[in-house]
């Protein structure tokens, strides 16, 4: 059995997580994403404080983009809330997969509230990769160090994007605003490895543009729930082509 890396104290483990975050590949990814989100928040007329609080409390890029573009464009709040919650469902299996790595016999559930809150795609991918090599008793502190640093990077670069968008000439401000759609499209496509994911991505793109152009109410929900459900049904039928005995 490989030797697990252990730390003399919780603060040392926390700092180990901080150091890992600052040198990980997700640093530039998070920085770039939040420069775009900061520019978006500025564009939709939200304040720098609001942007920072949304990063600390929501801490999920897709949900923040849906929230900012939704309330900024004056969509119905119910629609925005439903779209946010549908985008957040993926956090649920992620938390459930992460917690067994963190939990020991001595761990109280209250110790796990912070790691659960910090769960987001970047932190989750890194935690699942790194935590198995860390001593069990140090994992919660290490994970908190890692994720609070990621959140700090996000909040900082959100403000960078916010103030850049305020001060740059129009063409460059447009380029900042373009970061969000292009990077979300590409990162979603990158993690879409199954036919189901790819179909959902394609249908969502077409549906999102088409329903908005037709000015249908709750266009985003129709595109998301409709497109996602069609993709699910198609892939389900294709998964079991040989089952003639039903």
């Amino acid at each position, binding site marked *: 059995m490989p030797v697990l890396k252990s730390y003399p104290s919780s603060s040392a483990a926390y700092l180990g997580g901080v150091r890992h975050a600052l040198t990980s590949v997700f640093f530039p*990814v998070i920085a770039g994403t939040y420069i775009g989100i900061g520019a978006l928040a500025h*564009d*939709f007329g939200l304040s720098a404080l609001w942007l920072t609080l949304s990063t600390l409390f*929501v801490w999920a890029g*897709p*949900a*923040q*983009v849906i*929230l900012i*573009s939704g309330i900024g464009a004056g969509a119905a*709040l119910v629609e925005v*809330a439903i*779209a*946010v*919650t549908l*985008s*957040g*469902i*993926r*956090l649920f299996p992620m*938390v*459930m997969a992460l917690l*067994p790595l963190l939990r020991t016999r001595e761990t109280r559930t209250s110790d796990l*509230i912070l790691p659960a809150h910090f*769960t987001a795609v970047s932190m989750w991918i890194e935690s699942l990769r790194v935590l198995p090599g860390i001593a069990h008793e140090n994992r919660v502190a290490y994970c908190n160090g890692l994720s609070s640093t990621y959140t700090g990077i996000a909040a900082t670069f959100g403000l960078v994007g916010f103030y850049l968008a305020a001060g740059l000439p*129009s*063409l*460059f*401000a*447009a*380029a900042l*605003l*373009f*970061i969000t*759609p*292009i*990077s*979300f499209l590409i990162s979603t496509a*990158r993690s*879409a490895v199954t036919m189901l994911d790819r179909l*959902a*991505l394609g249908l*969502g*793109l*077409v*549906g*999102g*543009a088409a*329903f*908005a152009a037709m000015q249908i109410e709750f266009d*985003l*929900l129709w*595109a*998301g729930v*409709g*497109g996602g*459900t069609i*993709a*699910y049904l198609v*892939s389900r039928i294709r998964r079991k082509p040989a089952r003639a005995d039903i």
Partner: protein
Amino acid sequence: MSADLWPYVVLMLVGFLPNEAWRLVGLVLARGLNEQSEIVLWSRAVATAILAGVVAKLVVFASGSLATIPLGVRIGAVVIGFAAFLLIRRSPLAGVLVGEAVLLAGGYFFAP
């Protein structure tokens, strides 16, 4: 209620709670849900499609400075950036940089 506080109330009610609820559900439910269970597959597809819908709306119905770039340039930048991502070792950075370069060049030469 003060109108100044309203955006923060919206942030909590419409942004924080609907998102955080799923983290708490994950925390409370002790037993793991199978990553391949049907409800997880469906919810993942819906979440992907919603995000794709947001991306399409941000590009096609752009606001602010981005709206000053012609629609054809915006769509061209997305398509070429995406193609660059696929062709250059599926590198997200390459895709984003090429897309941005096309947007800047197109915005400069096709300024309305």
